[in-house]
């Protein structure tokens, strides 16, 4: 919770936040043309990839180190290990305590943060360019030499477990957890990043060290610089701080993605709340899916396009049933979830679910209009400058492009791929990737008031 987050009420506040997540995930799909973004890219001898975008206008730099050590890489029976390792990076190294790390970077007005996503772990720093040496020194130290001291491990573990407990008061988190488990079973994409509390309690220092040793390797990582830094400087610093980081073979991790249910399943969770929190969906697609572009456009029309989507138009604007409603394909290394999410007062849950299902069926059964298609394309094409308008956003995009293997020609190809999508493509992918009769519906609500009808 940030202080700012406490306070503002906006027309799109929560939805904006939710979309922020979706946009981050799809951000690679909204870049500038090649001419606007010159990326310097090279690989050090130990396999560490370096990417640099030079922007000298302001004396500041953002740097991100991404390591393919996300929650997807959690070992069997150790759900939450990747998250805990990532959280511990900035909580003490062999030569620095947690307060020392914080103090060093904050004294010069910079920030450092670390955490795990589904497919990778991230350490990000932001500093004035004159402090770039210090920032890289810290970044390398926390990524390479975390100490996993007992007091730090126990402090972070308690924090994670308390967060899991506090999440039980957040209907959105409760519904996410139930949805993930029902759709993905034991696959790590089905879990919140914190993992499973009983397993988190049992992690040993050896587990943490072993995971770090196996996955945190230069040949499994990418370092991206954006801001007031030249490729030459970046290379020199990267060599100095990461040059002696030893490469090693990294284990390949892959769990089976479960089959969809034979019939739509409804999971009800009873809570003393005023709104039904609804999540509906199923397994979606991987980022490497060749249908990614038509799917992105289909989803934009269905529920991805903020207040202009079909779902928002029907459920929010026409019926006044929800403040926030959206759909999202989270395209990951392996097939990520497709989900539709909204909240509505308990008594209108049935009506809203019915409307959502009508829209899902309609986009499969009827072609979208030429206007809808062209508006989706012009949004996706026109919005890319805003995806790159700060150093931080651009660094995230560079990470994304490398992690998902999109390649630097991706910029040049992007507009062509968006523009090539036809009305027929949209209907084809809607039929292929939306499964209205094989969904999981999770409804966290006052069940007596909601009185849900079976699917």
């Amino acid at each position, binding site marked *: 919770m940030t202080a700012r987050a406490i306070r*503002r009420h906006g027309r799109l506040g929560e939805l904006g936040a939710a979309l922020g997540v979706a946009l981050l995930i799809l951000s690679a799909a909204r870049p500038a043309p090649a001419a606007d973004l010159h990326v310097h890219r090279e690989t050090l001898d130990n396999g560490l990839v370096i990417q640099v975008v030079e922007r000298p206008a302001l004396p500041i730099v953002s740097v991100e180190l991404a390591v393919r050590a996300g929650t997807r890489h959690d070992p069997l029976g150790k759900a939450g290990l990747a998250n805990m390792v990532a959280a511990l990076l900035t909580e003490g190294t062999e030569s620095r305590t*947690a307060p020392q790390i914080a103090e060093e970077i904050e004294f010069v007005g910079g920030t450092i943060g670390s955490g795990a996503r589904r497919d990778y772990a991230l350490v990000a720093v932001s500093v004035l360019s004159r402090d770039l*040496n210090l920032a890289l020194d810290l970044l390398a130290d926390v990524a390479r030499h975390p100490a996993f001291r007992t007091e730090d491990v126990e402090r972070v573990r308690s924090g994670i477990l308390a967060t899991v407990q506090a999440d039980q008061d957040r209907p959105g988190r409760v519904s996410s957890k139930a949805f993930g488990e029902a759709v993905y079973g034991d696959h790590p994409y089905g879990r919140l990043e914190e993992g499973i509390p009983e397993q988190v309690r049992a992690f040993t220092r050896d587990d943490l060290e072993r995971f770090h040793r196996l996955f945190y390797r230069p040949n499994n990582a990418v370092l991206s610089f954006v801001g007031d830094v030249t490729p030459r400087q970046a290379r020199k610093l990267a060599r100095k701080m990461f040059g002696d980081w030893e490469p090693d073979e990294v284990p390949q991790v892959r769990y089976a993605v479960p089959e969809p249910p034979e019939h739509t399943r409804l999971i009800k969770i009873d809570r003393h709340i005023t709104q039904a929190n609804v999540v509906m969906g199923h397994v979606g697609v991987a980022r490497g899916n060749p249908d990614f572009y038509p799917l992105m456009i289909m989803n934009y029309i269905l529920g991805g396009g903020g207040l*202009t989507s079909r779902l928002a138009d029907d459920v929010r604007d026409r019926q*006044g*049933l929800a403040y926030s409603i959206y759909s999202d394909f989270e395209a990951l290394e392996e097939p990520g979830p497709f989900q539709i999410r909204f909240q509505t007062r308990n008594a209108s849950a049935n009506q809203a679910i019915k409307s959502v299902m009508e829209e899902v069926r309609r986009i499969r059964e009827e072609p979208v209009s030429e206007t809808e298609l062209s508006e989706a394309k012009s949004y996706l094409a026109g919005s890319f400058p805003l995806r790159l308008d700060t150093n931080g956003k651009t660094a995230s995009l560079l990470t994304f492009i490398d992690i998902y293997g999109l390649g630097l020609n991706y910029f040049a190809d992007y507009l062509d791929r968006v523009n090539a999508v036809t009305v027929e493509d949209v209907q084809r992918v809607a039929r292929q990737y939306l499964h209205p009769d094989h969904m999981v519906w999770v409804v966290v609500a*006052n069940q007596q008031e909601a009185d849900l009808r079976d699917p």
Partner: protein
Amino acid sequence: MTRRFTPFLATLSVLVSAAILHAEPVRIHTLDNGLTVILKEEHKAPVVSFQVWYGVGSRNEVTGKTGLTHLLEHLMFKGSEHYDKGEFSRIVARYGGTENAFTYRDYTAYFTNWAPQHLPLSLAMEADRMANLTLDPEEFTPELEVVREERRLRIDDNPIYATIEQMYAAAYMAHPYGQPVIGWMNDLKHLTRDDAYRHYLAYYAPNNATIVAVGDFDSADLLRRIRETFGPIPRSNAIPPLTVREPPQEGERRIILRRPAQLPFVFLGYHTPNWASEDSLPLVVLANILFEGKSSRMFQRLMYRDQIAVDGGGEYDPLTTDPELFYFYAIVAPDHSADEVEAAIYEEVERLASEPPEERELTRAKNQIEADFLMNQDSVYTQAMQLGHAATVGAGPDYVTTFPERVRKVTGEDVMRVAKAYLTADNRTVAVLTPKMAEPATPGKEGE
């Protein structure tokens, strides 16, 4: 690994001054109809943030009509003379832009971020809804329902925000800052289309508005276009004045909220002056020392040393029209109590009220404030937000641009003095969320 770098002990003042020197100037104009226009060119990316700020917020609402300002904000997207309902959003999306709006205690603001060639559309659409809002009665009822859903989502099903709402209600006895921005649920059931329209006519006038644009445009050209588009909108001579003042607090006030919840939550605040007071700058530095980053005193005490909170911090924002609160919050860790957390907060407050911060701590706070200033310039949206915010609460854009150099003059003694003057037991309001066992969920009466 050895530590190869000794952090600089000097402040960053030289660097920041250089950055300010090279930055494009902020240009301020007032049109004949009273409209304030703030323009800042920023040519490093082909984007612009165009914003319209109105000097109306929940501060301007009366008993029984809370939530009206925020509801009106929603209705501003439902059509004006030349643009159908939803057309604003559709046009912005079609050209790849993002748009949104937000309402708070002192203001309502609308923004569009997109490519600069679309600025003429921003002007036309914003001017049309400033002067000619339709407010179709057919659109009113479903949108009121949407806002009630928003309240359920943000407050009613969120024990933390419900606690914050009640704390503000207790901290302010006379001033409308005690009313929730989203509105009380019962008020949200009784607001009418005519309420909203009267509110619109009263407050949406050029002499109660500020246009802010930051981005890749030519100021002279944009100003000319703004004059053409907004110049003909007549000023209002009937903007209701607000003279209310909160009387001084003379003793601690306490609020207990008993709800089914996993963990206790503490939210406490002290009445403090706003930007208009010289004391606001030391208060900003004090807040930075207490709350900013993991090296801050609150983080080190609550989450690192004592480990009695899952999350904790606070904020002081001097940019308010009337005096607001300097607040602390903490989610209490399992197996600890709100009392422990409160005691630790008061101990840290007491320490700062009786001895000045360490020199290095003071320097760190100033360095952070100056670095933030530079980093905020990376985003045209953030810059426009800060300028619009400062202008609307009366501080003016200069407040933003001269902020780092004025903060640099704050001394440790100043920080100690304001901690002692304002963070006193008699001047605080404390709200505690006290978990109770959840009863079986049954049909309940909502928000009444």
